[in-house]
């Protein structure tokens, strides 16, 4: 079933099972993607199929307003996200505690859900969670405003029209309209800070993963100090986009966490980089000054031009997990 109405909103859901079906005691894993420039595809391709193939029952869904889920004009606060998730689990008939895996703001949602409904949660995997005791909402909203400014830039408009290509264009346009046409920014501004006391009492095991070069890496220490059962993993040479950068290791790490935690934690080995459909400047929110230079030059010299002509200067190559990270950098409030 690809669509489920939960908490009054139509959610796009992909449920992934191992070949032959899951065993009755298989871990149920629910993926929570990042905000704005993200959807379920990032987890579907990075960890979803890999964990289902390893024996887990995996549920990926598009958060309200994202991907192919219904875009409501309002209702983007964290309390509504919690209600959406509870209703979704009810609709799917999930009656066992679930393992939540969240990326960036999705990890913030996971941590909040674990604190609010510990009886429904078996474990939390938090990938690059923006974690602050104070000012979390303001930080995320400021970051979102920066994203909106970056994707509303005139240079970006020109690039989207002539050079970006269809896939990137669709992702960016969708993010633009989500920010312009819904209350998501103000709703995120209202995010309440985490209560230290509640986190000190969190009865759920937590696996927290940060990139060693991430701007929010030091926030992991605060999390690990408060949460009683927290395994903190910092991957050197990686950034806030660690989900897309270190997917091979994260597949191994998550298989250990979900299925073989009594064994020794697998060691990390660095592997080469990958290419993705969103350019780095989108993720870092800094529009390069020469974004359209090549197209203008070729246009001036009479070469072919027009929508769909991808400039080789702009890496629009493949991939999609990109999305995960983009929003992520959008809401993690690095500065």
């Amino acid at each position, binding site marked *: 079933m*690809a669509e489920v109405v939960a908490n009054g909103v139509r959610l796009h859901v*992909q449920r*992934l*099972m*191992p*070949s032959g079906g899951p065993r009755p005691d298989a871990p149920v894993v629910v993926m929570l993607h990042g905000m704005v420039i993200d*959807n*379920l*595809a*990032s987890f*579907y*391709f*990075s960890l979803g*199929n*890999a964990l*289902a*193939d*390893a024996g887990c029952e995996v549920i990926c869904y*598009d958060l309200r307003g994202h*991907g*192919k889920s219904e875009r409501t004009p309002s209702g983007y606060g964290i309390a509504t996200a919690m209600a959406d998730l509870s209703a979704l689990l009810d609709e799917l008939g999930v009656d066992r505690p679930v393992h939540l895996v969240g990326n960036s703001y999705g990890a913030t949602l996971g941590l909040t859900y674990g604190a609010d409904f510990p009886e429904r949660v078996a474990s939390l995997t938090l990938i690059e969670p923006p974690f602050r005791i104070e000012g979390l909402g303001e930080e995320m909203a400021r970051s979102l405003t920066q994203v909106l400014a970056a994707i509303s830039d005139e240079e970006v408009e020109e690039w989207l029209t002539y050079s970006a*290509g*269809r*896939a990137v264009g*669709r*992702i960016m346009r969708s993010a633009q309209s989500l920010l312009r046409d819904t209350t998501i920014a103000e709703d995120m501004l209202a995010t309440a800070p985490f209560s230290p006391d509640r986190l000190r009492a969190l009865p759920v095991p937590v696996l927290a993963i940060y990139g060693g070069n991430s701007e929010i890496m030091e926030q992991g220490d605060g999390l690990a100090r408060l949460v009683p059962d927290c395994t903190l993993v910092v991957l050197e040479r990686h950034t806030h986009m660690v989900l*897309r950068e270190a*997917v*091979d290791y994260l597949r191994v790490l998550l298989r250990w966490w979900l299925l073989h935690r009594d064994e020794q934690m697998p060691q990390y080995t660095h592997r080469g980089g*990958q*290419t*993705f*459909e969103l350019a780095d400047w989108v993720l870092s929110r800094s529009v390069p000054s020469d974004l359209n230079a090549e197209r203008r030059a070729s246009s001036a010299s009479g070469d072919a031009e027009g929508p*769909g002509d991808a400039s080789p200067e702009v890496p629009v*190559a*493949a*991939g*999609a*997990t990109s*999305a995960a990270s983009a929003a992520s950098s959008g809401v993690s409030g690095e500065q």
Partner: protein
Amino acid sequence: MTIQDTLRSADPTLDALEARVLGEIAEMLRDVIGEEYVVDMEITMDTSFNEDLELESIEFVTLADRMRVTYGDQVDFVGFLAEMDVDRVINMRVGEVVHFIADSLRAGAKGA
């Protein structure tokens, strides 16, 4: 373009099963993308999801969902996608998926 058109223009080296699967996937792709540019595009074994079709990753998820419904448990899409990186998936050509499905269906028929 109909399935029959697709079959006529298909690679003559394909066997009947592969030609049928290619036609079915081409129709699914036109439906999932749902834009004018793909209506008259000839979708062959060499067509790239990324460069030729400019498929967005969430559209590939929808395509995989359609294929799962169409071909059922005989085709293990979870196993097929489990070890692939997303850039590897999007950079695939249609033919790789057709071969995987046709091989799975043949293996299923033998095992039945």
